[in-house]
């Protein structure tokens, strides 16, 4: 299955891209995240939330959408 992963803020600085298309065999968000972490080691120390098809989900959610987004908090003002 192909899925688009979008990165925001500091996350996109670590991945050096705002989005990418991944061919995945993982079935849950947690498993997909394991894979993303192995690709981008530095993400491990970052705080972020995950959205599937533009809706925040938790780690146990099954992947059934076409777009995943990694969303960090911003504090600036």
């Amino acid at each position, binding site marked *: 299955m192909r899925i688009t992963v979008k990165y925001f803020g500091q996350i996109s600085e670590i991945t050096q891209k705002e989005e990418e298309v991944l061919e995945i065999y993982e079935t849950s968000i*947690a498993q997909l995240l394991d894979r993303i972490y192995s690709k981008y080691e530095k993400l491990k120390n970052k705080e972020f939330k995950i959205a599937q098809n533009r809706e925040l989900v938790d780690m146990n959610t099954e992947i059934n959408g076409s777009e995943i987004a990694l969303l960090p908090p911003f504090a600036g003002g």
Partner: protein
Amino acid sequence: MERYNRHIILPEIGQTGQDKISNSKVLVIGAGGLGCPILQYLAAAGVGFLGIIDFDTVDLTNLQRQVLYGNSSLGKNKALAAKSRLSDLNSDINIIAYPEPLTYQNALDLFKQYDIVVDGSDNFATRYLVNDAAVITNKPLVFGAIYKFEGQISVFNYKHGPTYRCLFPNPPEAHSVPNCSDIGVLGVLPGIVGSMQANEVLKIILGIGDVLSGKLLCYNALNAQITSLKFKKHEKGVAQILNTSNSFRKKQLDLDCDVTSNRISFKDVIFDHNIQLIDVREEDEQPKMLDYPITNIPLSRLESHLSKLEPNKKHILFCQSGVRSQMAVNRLKELQINSCFSLEEGASELNQYLKENLKIIENER
């Protein structure tokens, strides 16, 4: 009412709507990059009571984006300098300046005097304080935050809707997210984000359009993309904020964020009988752990297996990479179970470490 003619001739606003604006009381936290455009548009729109709280003073690096100030404001308190500029912009409204920091001690009494709170602060400690105070005093909170070329906008606690903690339950660790003063920000970005916040304020006052509740709007100034992400209310989390309302005034604002790290490396663990190792992976996951006392509590069943947590022990949770164990620790902390840590390393590294150090570990036990 000539001043507000362009509002009044809009059928969606009219004289009735303009009266609602004149009777509204809005408190703006911070008169910096976000606060300036928020204040400017709300004052121009005729918000009847406009509160400004900021302890900071204007410096030269602020003028690149904080558009209420000029050379003559340098060195002056921002709340007072903003008030003086806004009084000239609109002398028909009441502007109240609080040249002091927002704290756990003054927040509740201040919020109670207003209908809507707008967050234009620049650090996580204040943002969580503002969120919790808005929940306790039951005020809608118009949120905006920026990072380099990107902004986030939402409305929290609107008609008992989701809050900031429903989005990000706990403050990130100190210094993990740099601030504008350390990394820079495109000057026009807070102008755009602050204007969007002012727009949400006016929609709430007027009761028109769809208020940005339960949605986080993410704006990217470089590619002009807007992404709207939905999120739900976390009832337990909100109830917990309300439960702390009695002790709220006793808390201290720690601008470094008062979170102690809950991540730990096995190198820093003494494997004695005071610790409980907990595997939060699902049962069929590989590798299986060595012959060493380990409790299995899959993350998916965490809340129904709390009795497996041995009292008076330090709970060390692990999974394949450290993601789910961190999730589990966050969830346990929400349940007020604090003696838990997420292992930085994954199951296979832990297995290897236990194998290599089993003899030493046996002695520690």
